[in-house]
């Protein structure tokens, strides 16, 4: 296991090692994996949108193994209750006395995969909000702090919208990224077929590369990455554009998007071995940061523009 990361060069080496190990289990999806790692390093949450069977669970599970973090998976269903994920008080008998004790739910983990979050009811979705933003859970009068690092990766299916509860804007805004998981290329799919029909590759065979302490240290390092004033202006200007281009966007992104854009760019620079942020970092991070934070107007939709097309237009 790598220990005591100090420089951006060392961080790059460590992350490259994580990526090469994850490549043993997951074929392709490099972009989604990198964005997930960036999200973890920013101490933020990510929303992963993709069709079933695109190795979403496998990716997150593998990452948790490689980072030596606890992992739990929650399947979103319409009958899922908040107490099912947060936990509940149970009556216990200790030393002849009966008392209520709190039984932690699956949310108390380092990495939580909330599968098909949009199938859960708004009440359950909302139960996630405090944990995602404040890194704590309030049950009755008690506040339970989440373990660090804490990361929620929620997935949703872009099709089959029947019987789902679309995420409210407030909750969408709490996800740093909306990562789009793409179908593998032909060669990649061929590799998947060859790899998994001939041999069995177990996630348990993965050995931790980065420890919990390293992840917390990396999160601190991300904040230390310096940013030039021009880059800050560029990022804030881009987010402001989402509010001023009323001809395409009905509701623009919040200041949380500016924060996220700079933090994600810092993390990207760090895992690429740089100790400064450049304009390309902002441009690259703009898509996953902004795509779920803007609401297009009728005119844009009438012209078949999606959020990515509008963001690319703003970047020009």
């Amino acid at each position: 296991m790598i220990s005591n990361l100090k420089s951006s060069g060392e961080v790059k080496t460590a992350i490259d090692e994580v990526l090469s190990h994850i490549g043993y289990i997951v074929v392709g999806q490099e972009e989604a994996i990198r964005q997930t790692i960036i999200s973890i390093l920013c101490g933020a949450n990510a929303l992963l949108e993709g069709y079933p069977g695109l190795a979403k669970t496998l990716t997150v599970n593998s990452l948790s193994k490689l980072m030596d973090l606890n992992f739990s998976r929650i399947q979103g269903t319409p009958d899922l209750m908040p107490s099912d994920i947060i936990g509940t008080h149970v009556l216990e008998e200790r030393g002849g006395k009966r008392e209520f004790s709190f039984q932690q739910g699956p949310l108390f983990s380092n990495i939580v995969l909330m599968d098909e979050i949009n199938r859960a009811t708004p009440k359950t979705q909302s139960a996630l909000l405090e944990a995602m933003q404040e890194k704590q859970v309030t049950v009755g009068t008690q506040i339970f702090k989440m373990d660090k690092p804490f990361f929620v990766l929620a997935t949703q299916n872009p099709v089959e919208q029947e019987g789902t509860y679309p995420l409210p804007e407030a909750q969408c805004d709490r996800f740093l990224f909306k990562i789009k998981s793409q179908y593998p290329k032909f060669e990649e799919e061929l590799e998947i077929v060859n790899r998994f029909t001939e041999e069995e590759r177990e996630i348990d065979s993965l050995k931790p590369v980065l420890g919990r302490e390293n992840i917390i240290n990396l999160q601190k390092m991300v904040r230390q990455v310096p940013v030039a004033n021009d880059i800050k202006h560029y990022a804030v200007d881009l987010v402001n554009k989402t509010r001023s281009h009323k001809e395409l966007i009905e509701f623009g992104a919040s200041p949380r998007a500016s924060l996220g854009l700079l933090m994600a760019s810092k993390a990207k620079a760090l895992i690429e071995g740089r100790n400064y942020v450049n304009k390309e970092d902002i441009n690259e991070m703009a898509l996953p940061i902004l795509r779920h934070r803007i609401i297009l107007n009728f005119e844009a939709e009438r012209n078949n523009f999606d959020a990515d097309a509008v963001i690319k237009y703003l970047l020009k």
Partner: protein
Amino acid sequence: MVNVRKEVSRIKRRLVLTKFFDCFLDSVLISLLISSFLVFFGLSFLLALGVGGGYLLFGFIRSAKKSSISEIEKKVPGLEWQLRTAVDNFGKNNGIINDLNNEVATKVGFVGFYDLISGKRTIKRFGGLIFLGVLLFYIQSSGFNLIDTVEELGGEGVGSLTGFFGGGETSIEDLSEIQGEGSLAELGGKELELELGTEANRADLGSEGEYKQDSGGQSYNGRIGGSQDKTFNENINLDEKSIVERFYNNLNK
């Protein structure tokens, strides 16, 4: 810890020096260009030196004001965004920033005067300098000027257009517009054409100068001719004056 501020100040000074060099080359180019033009018209090139000097002064001040860190980054691609980031984060202290400062200081240390000047542009400027220098030398040494060339080519009206430039003697051959057409005078059975020279009025009788006076019974075998300069001295012997006077009288009839 590296003092990146000192290194940045040093590279900024070097950039300003580069700007001065660029402006100096430009001003020399401009001076040479204007000089060539002026010499072409036979004028003094002191005016060109004035224009070049003015350009050097104002151009340098303007470009020095415009010089920025991003300009250095553009000229030295290895420093792109790094230098700016280091400058904007002066005074902050953590592991990542210290690494950045060290990296910037090392890279800036290798940036010399030649990294900051644009190679292609400088070569073009030097090319221009050599060309204009040779052109100016040629014009100066050959005494070439536009007015003479146009006159030699038979240009009309140039004198009146460029009269301002015509300081010396004119070599205009066709003075008919100024002095009138040559007169033909019949003298006996011969035809004589009297031509007026440019420097002095002179009647050149050519071979007919061998004139024999037969009407008065006297004969004259000397060369008949007269010239008049600004002193109006005539080089005719006083003894023969009467013969010459008669000749002119005949001409004037």
